């Protein structure tokens, strides 16, 4: 899995470096640079071919669209991961709080009902003990 990403990363780095060198050539062009420019253009096309080949290996990879918003705003995409983890933890704690509260409520309710309806609650406890969760 990591090898597929490494392969793609390598091709992209080469492609970006090629484009950067192309930009340097073009920024102050000389007639003698024409051959180099042509070579860089063909390297660019071969780079795109290599990237397209990598696409087939990565068709199962899904990227959340929210990450694209972070990148478009010039923000670090790791912040998205961080915020996902923080939200998951916060939600986990919230649900745990609800479960704990409901458990306490149940035990309080049973104890209070046992005071008011002792016989019925004894039957209820027997029935619940007989029938485990299905």
């Amino acid at each position, binding site marked *: 899995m990591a090898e597929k990403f490494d392969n793609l990363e390598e091709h992209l780095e080469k492609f970006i470096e090629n484009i950067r060198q192309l930009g340097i050539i073009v*920024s102050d*062009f000389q007639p003698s640079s024409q051959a180099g420019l042509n070579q860089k*253009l063909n390297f660019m096309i071969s780079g795109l071919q290599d990237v397209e080949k990598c696409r087939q290996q990565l068709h199962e990879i899904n990227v959340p669209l929210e990450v694209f918003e972070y*990148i478009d705003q*010039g*923000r*670090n995409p790791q912040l998205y991961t961080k915020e996902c983890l923080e939200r998951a933890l916060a939600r986990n704690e919230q649900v745990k709080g609800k479960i704990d509260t409901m458990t306490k409520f149940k035990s309080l309710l049973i104890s209070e009902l046992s005071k008011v309806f002792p016989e019925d609650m004894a*039957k209820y406890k027997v029935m619940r003990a007989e029938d485990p969760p299905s």
Partner: protein
Amino acid sequence: MTEMFSTMFGQNEAQGPPGSAALGFGSGKQPQSQASQPGQMPTQIGDEGPILRKPGASNEPFYLLRDLPVGNELTGNSNLITHYNLEHAYNKFCGKKVKEKLSNFLPELPGMIDCPGTQDGSSLRSLIDKPPVCGNSFSPLTGALLTGFRLHTGPLPEQYRLMHIQPPKKKSKHKHKHHRLQDPLPQETPSDSDPKKKKKKRDDDPDRKKKKKDKKKKKNRHSPDHPGLTGSQPNSSSLR
């Protein structure tokens, strides 16, 4: 539906009053009669919840007592981050401070990548909204096609020089005030767009105006034509 209830309670009519049998509070023999007739389990009405218990003596004095739900092993009661082995990831992203800018994530990428993509049309969102034409294969450029890439000699115009420019470094505020008066205007760079130049000029102009006004006021005070002039002033030659 009515046939189901009649088969369940049909044999019980002789035993007790029909009202109590219909409500499910009959004698203890009812479960046996029901067990001897297979295929008469009460079917669930809709899929709203667990299967309703058979109304019978076993549930006395409770009515419509449902079964307890199946207890899942994994609930919000447990720490899901440790369950899914994400502690390392959590410590990595939430324990340390993650830098805000995209250039901190991709330090080797050239150009100004911290600017929003909508400014220069390089947003990923636009790529999703308007996907490029795919399907055609990439073929190398031939000699005839390469003739279109014959460029003029010389440097590019400054407005097109975008590749090698770093974002301007922020100066501290207290230094900025000192350098404002002393240093000449900074050199032009393509990263300094026109609005920034205009802002600098606008910022300078009111200050210049104020200074000019102050100077004028001072001049007017010292001039002989000023009405507020008194004899104590040494420059007033008319009184002498």
